[in-house]
């Protein structure tokens, strides 16, 4: 017995040490152990600037990375553990037992940068703008809030969302980094006011913006969290060339590039700067895949589609493409490793995910022969004319298809033409079709295969079973039950080879070791408020 206890203690000690050791290697937690230093301006390089400054009306990372530090949101993903939702302007939230009402309590000590207090009326006005956009404005993520029937602000500290039906994703959507809170008085005058102006209540105040060049914020001394932010300010340099952004981090002109750099650049920087830089890898809720046009022959034939997906060796693709492009994760329709994902063993049973490639290719050839293509086939793979990761991804996939006698021609299209081809004209046979989200949420990814969503459903899948499953999983509040439905949805998509999944993106972020207390969230849209980030001495 004593030996058992001693062994138990020893195991416990080892486990504790291991946990401590791993904790010390995590950037967020290691930084937490150090004493934060006040002052300094965080310098970042970014690849683009946004059409406007209003996050409700934009969908590019270039918007949210620049302006997130200037605003509060109702809820947020925990900056140090993105799987958790915590409050921001909201302090607590409660869903009614029938799942039809979500009540959020709003902090009463928050002031906008113009000095006016933030109340539930501002929250209501902001969410009204998102859910029921007034004429002349757009709301990019309106579809995520179709479930909302009404928004009420019964008193300054309470906001109530009335839903049409229970929604598993609703509370997570309240933590969306895009849903910043604007002061109502400006929205009343002009709902587009914040396209060119900033009045937030975030840790930083707007300082300056030169379009195409720089964007700056400065410390908000009245921020509602005492002693935050640590930084005096932040400044983004807008530089579209990846190699130049990498050189900026390498030369110290920028402390960080938040979106992530190709692994080859990260390695070069690490080789040169050693422990002066820190590398963080963040598996991201985003994939690159191939969509088949189901309205064009022979892609309406499940045998052809299945052959094409069987021919792709995703495990080798991961090894080859990760250093070049950041594409790494082998997974289904939800991010591998996330709470909704099926286990690797389950995944391997699905067409295209088995590890025996000889067997897969033999089956693929057999299927093609059965479909009337015993000598292979030829078609065009429409693609975006962006090298990383689009072109590299296509080159690999085309090589794989060659092994089963299929000749695909990569046709690079300029971004606007590629969007048009995928969504409007549908003038393609197969097309490289990525999908990137701000969180792990099945509602956001599965919608690509739902018949009522023609603009995201590039393949034009029309399967009543999928439509029904999509509705059901979205209304199922029990996570275990919901996971079953999500995985069932995935199985149908892959069994019927509705599209050929590629790989999931893993961001590699290299930053100066001076940057402390910032942990790369899975999504490059999240954890950009910077309220806890500080800069160590040079």
């Amino acid at each position, binding site marked *: 017995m004593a030996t058992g206890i001693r062994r138990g203690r020893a195991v416990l000690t080892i486990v504790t040490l291991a946990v401590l050791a791993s904790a010390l290697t995590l950037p967020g937690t290691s930084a937490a152990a150090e004493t934060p230093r006040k002052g300094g301006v965080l310098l970042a390089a970014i690849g683009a600037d946004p059409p406007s400054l209003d996050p409700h009306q934009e969908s590019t990372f270039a918007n949210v990375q620049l302006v997130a530090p200037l605003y509060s949101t109702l809820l947020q993903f925990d900056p140090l553990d993105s799987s958790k939702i915590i409050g921001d302007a909201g302090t607590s939230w409660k869903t009614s037992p029938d799942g039809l009402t979500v009540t959020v309590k709003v902090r009463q000590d928050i002031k906008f940068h113009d000095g006016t207090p933030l109340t539930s009326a501002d929250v209501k006005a902001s969410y009204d703008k998102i859910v029921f956009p007034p004429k002349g404005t757009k709301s990019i993520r309106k579809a995520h809030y179709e479930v909302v029937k009404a928004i009420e602000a019964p008193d300054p500290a309470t906001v109530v969302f009335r839903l049409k039906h229970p929604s598993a994703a609703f509370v997570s959507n309240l933590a969306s980094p895009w849903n910043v809170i604007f002061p109502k008085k400006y929205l009343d005058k002009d709902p587009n006011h914040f396209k060119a102006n900033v009045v937030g209540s975030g840790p930083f105040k707007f300082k300056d913006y030169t379009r195409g060049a720089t964007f700056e914020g400065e410390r908000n001394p009245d921020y509602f969290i005492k002693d935050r932010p640590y930084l005096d300010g932040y400044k983004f340099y807008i530089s579209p060339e990846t190699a130049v952004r990498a050189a900026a981090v390498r030369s110290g002109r920028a402390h960080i590039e938040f979106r992530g750099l190709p692994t080859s650049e990260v390695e070069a920087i690490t080789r040169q700067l050693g422990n002066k830089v820190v590398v963080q890898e963040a598996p991201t809720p985003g994939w690159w895949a191939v969509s088949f046009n189901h309205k064009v022959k022979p892609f309406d034939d499940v045998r052809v589609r299945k052959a094409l997906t069987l021919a792709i060796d995703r495990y080798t693709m991961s090894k080859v493409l990760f250093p070049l492009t950041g594409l790494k994760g082998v997974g289904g329709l939800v991010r591998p490793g996330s709470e909704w994902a099926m286990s690797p063993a389950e995944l391997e049973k699905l067409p295209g995910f088995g590890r025996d490639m000889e067997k897969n290719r033999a089956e693929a050839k057999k299927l093609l022969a059965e479909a009337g293509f015993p000598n292979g086939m030829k078609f065009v793979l429409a693609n975006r004319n962006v090298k990383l990761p689009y072109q590299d991804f296509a080159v690999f996939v085309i090589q794989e298809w060659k092994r089963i006698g299929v000749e695909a021609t990569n046709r690079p299209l300029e971004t606007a033409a590629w969007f048009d081809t995928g969504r409007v004209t549908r003038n393609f046979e197969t097309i490289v*079709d990525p999908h990137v989200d701000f969180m792990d949420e099945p509602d956001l990814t599965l919608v690509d295969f739902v018949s009522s969503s023609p603009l995201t459903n590039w393949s034009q899948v029309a399967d009543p079973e999928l439509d029904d499953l999509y509705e059901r999983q979205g209304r199922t509040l029990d996570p275990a039950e919901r996971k079953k439905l999500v995985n069932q949805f995935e199985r149908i998509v892959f069994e019927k080879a509705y599209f050929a999944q590629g790989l999931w993106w893993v961001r590699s972020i290299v930053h100066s070791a001076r940057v402390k207390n910032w942990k790369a969230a899975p999504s490059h849209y999240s954890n950009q408020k910077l309220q806890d980030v500080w800069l160590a001495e040079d």
Partner: protein
Amino acid sequence: MRTYILKRLLLVVPTLLGVATIVFLIMRVIPGDVALLILGGDDGGQIDAQQLAAVRQQLGLDQPLIVQFGTWLWGVLQFDFGKSLWTGAPVLDELLIRLPLSLQLALMATLVSVIISIPLGMLAAVRQDTWVDYVIRVISIGGLAIPGFWVGILCILFLVIVFGWGPPLEYHPPWVDPWANLSMMVWPVVTVGYRYSAVTTRMTRSTVLEVLREDYIRTAWAKGLAQRVIVIRHALKNSMLPVITLIGTEFAFLIGGLVVTETVFTLNGIGRFVVDAVAHRDYPVVQALVFLIAFSFVIVNLLVDLTYAWFDPRIRYR
């Protein structure tokens, strides 16, 4: 002369109108939709068909093409180039942010090129088929053969890897912070100036060689004039006409054509702006920029023609 200048200036109007019409039509013919790009963002995301229609309407893209063209042209006649479809900001404001940088780069690169290329081209011609000529030829052919962006990237990587230093990422006008301006602009100026001077050196060498074979030069030699006088006073001036044409065309090109150099050196100039605007199908911006670039070409060509008269007094304009 005055009538000639007036005539040339009047010709600018149909030229610009022609360019505007062609660009308007081309931009509408190529596939792509700014509304889709605005709503689609980085990867596509979820797009609501109703919102797509609403954005198109908001941007005036639902109007017939002739109405869109007429509205735009009427604005231009009042010096109103409209608003960017992508940002909603007035096109002129967006343009003025970028114009000083592009002008500075074009002027400095032209200056560097002229200072380097004319003496080198002349020297190569005078010392034809000697080692001096060979060295100059290798350098100038190198400048023509090596792409500018590659020189730019190498330049940055060399500085970063060897000195751990990179050029600044932010543009400061020379009258605000001359040192910061110089430390940013010197690298693109060298990169662009190298290619530019390579072209001009080659042209200067050829034209000087041609003039040196003229009868009047032989006469000058026979008269016993000093080599310096023959080359500088008699040969150089007469061989400059093609060189000036080349310098003028290159200068106009530099205003809007340095897309890659501007991207490599993080310069927020007109070239990058043009490419972004085309990629975003931002019609008013593309039209205004093409207008500007066409206008630059027309004016520079006029100035070049007028310079001819100064170099060669036999030329008369009517």
